[in-house]
C-alpha cells in the first residue's frame, strides 16, 4: 500500500502545481502527470482494464490539450525532425506488435473465459435479476458500481463542458490583456 500512498501524494502535488502555475503548457504537463499516475494506481489496485483505458484517454487528452495550447506559436518542423518522428513512430509500432504477440501467447482461446466469475454472471443472472436481458441485468446488478461510475463520469464531463463553454462570467479579451 505504500506505493499507492506515494502515488496519491504525487497526484495531489501535481494537481496543486497544475492549478497554481501560470504557464499553460506546464499546466497541461502537470495534468498529464496526474493522469499517468492514476493509470499506475489502477494497475496496483489490480484493475488492468481500467489502467489501459485511463492510459489511452490520458494520452489522447494530452495530445489534444498540448495541440490547443501550442497552436498559436506553431512552427513548421524541419526535415530532420520529420525523419526523427517517422523513425520513432516505426519503432513504437514494432514494439507494440512484439508486445501484443507476446501477450497473445498467454491468452486463452476465444470463447474460453479466463475469468471464472463471468460464467457465474451468465448462470445466475436470470435467476437473480428476474429480467430476460442478461446484459442489462449484469450492467445494473453485478457491475452496478461500474455503471454508477460511468453515469457519474458522464455527468461530470457534461458539467465540465458547460463550465468551459459558459456564456456568463467569462472574461473579455480586454480584461485578459490587462492582466
Amino acid at each position, binding site marked *: 500500500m505504500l506505493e499507492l500512498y506515494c502515488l496519491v501524494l504525487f497526484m495531489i502535488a501535481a494537481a496543486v502545481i497544475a492549478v497554481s502555475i501560470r504557464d499553460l503548457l506546464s499546466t497541461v504537463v502537470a495534468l498529464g502527470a496526474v493522469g499517468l499516475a492514476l493509470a499506475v494506481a489502477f494497475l496496483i489496485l489490480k484493475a488492468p482494464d481500467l489502467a489501459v483505458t485511463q492510459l489511452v484517454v490520458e494520452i489522447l487528452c494530452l495530445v489534444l490539450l498540448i495541440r490547443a495550447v501550442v497552436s498559436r506559436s506553431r512552427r513548421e518542423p524541419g526535415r530532420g525532425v520529420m525523419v526523427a518522428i517517422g523513425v520513432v513512430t516505426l519503432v513504437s509500432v514494432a514494439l507494440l506488435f512484439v508486445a501484443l504477440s507476446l501477450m497473445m501467447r498467454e491468452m486463452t482461446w476465444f470463447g474460453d473465459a479466463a475469468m471464472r466469475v463471468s460464467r457465474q454472471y451468465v448462470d*445466475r443472472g436470470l*435467476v*437473480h*435479476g*428476474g*429480467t*430476460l*436481458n442478461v*446484459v*442489462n*441485468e449484469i*450492467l*445494473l*446488478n*453485478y457491475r*452496478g458500481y461500474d*455503471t*454508477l461510475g460511468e*453515469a*457519474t463520469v*458522464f*455527468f461530470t*464531463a*457534461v*458539467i465540465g*463542458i*458547460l463550465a468551459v*463553454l459558459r*456564456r456568463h462570467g467569462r472574461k473579455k479579451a480586454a480584461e485578459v490583456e490587462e492582466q
Partner: protein
Amino acid sequence: MNTTHHSGMTTIVKTVSRMTVILISLFGVSLVLHGHNSPGGGFAGGVIIALAGINYTLAFGARGNGENAGRETLLEKLPGLMGGAMLGFLICWFFLGLLSNGAGPSAGVVAPVTMLCDILIAVNVGAGLVLIFLRLASLRCGEGVRR
C-alpha cells in the same frame, strides 16, 4: 441547401424530419422501457432520444445569441434534470435492493427497479448529449452573429 444558421435546411428535410423524429423518439422510448427484457437499455435509448432532438434542431435550424428564449430556459434546466436522474439512479441502485446482488429482493421486485434505473440512465445520457449539442450550437451561432 440553405446554409444560414437561422432557417435550417430545405423543405424536404424539414418534412421528412417532422415525420421521422417522432418515430425515432418512440423507438428510443421503446428501447428504454423494454430494455430489461429485450436488447436495449438506458444508455442506448437515451442516445437515440437525444439524437432525435438533435435531428430536429439540425433540420429546423438553431438560433443562438439569446434569441431563442425557450431553448435558453431548456439549457438552464437540463443540468438539474441530469443531477436529479443521477440522484434517482443512486437511490434506486443503492436502496432498492440491487446492491445485494439478488440475495435479498425477489425476482418480481428487481425487474421494475431495473426498468426504473434504465429510465433514469436514459434521462441522464439523453439530457447530457442534448445539452452539449445545444451549447455548442448556440456558441457557433453567437460567433456567427458577431462576425
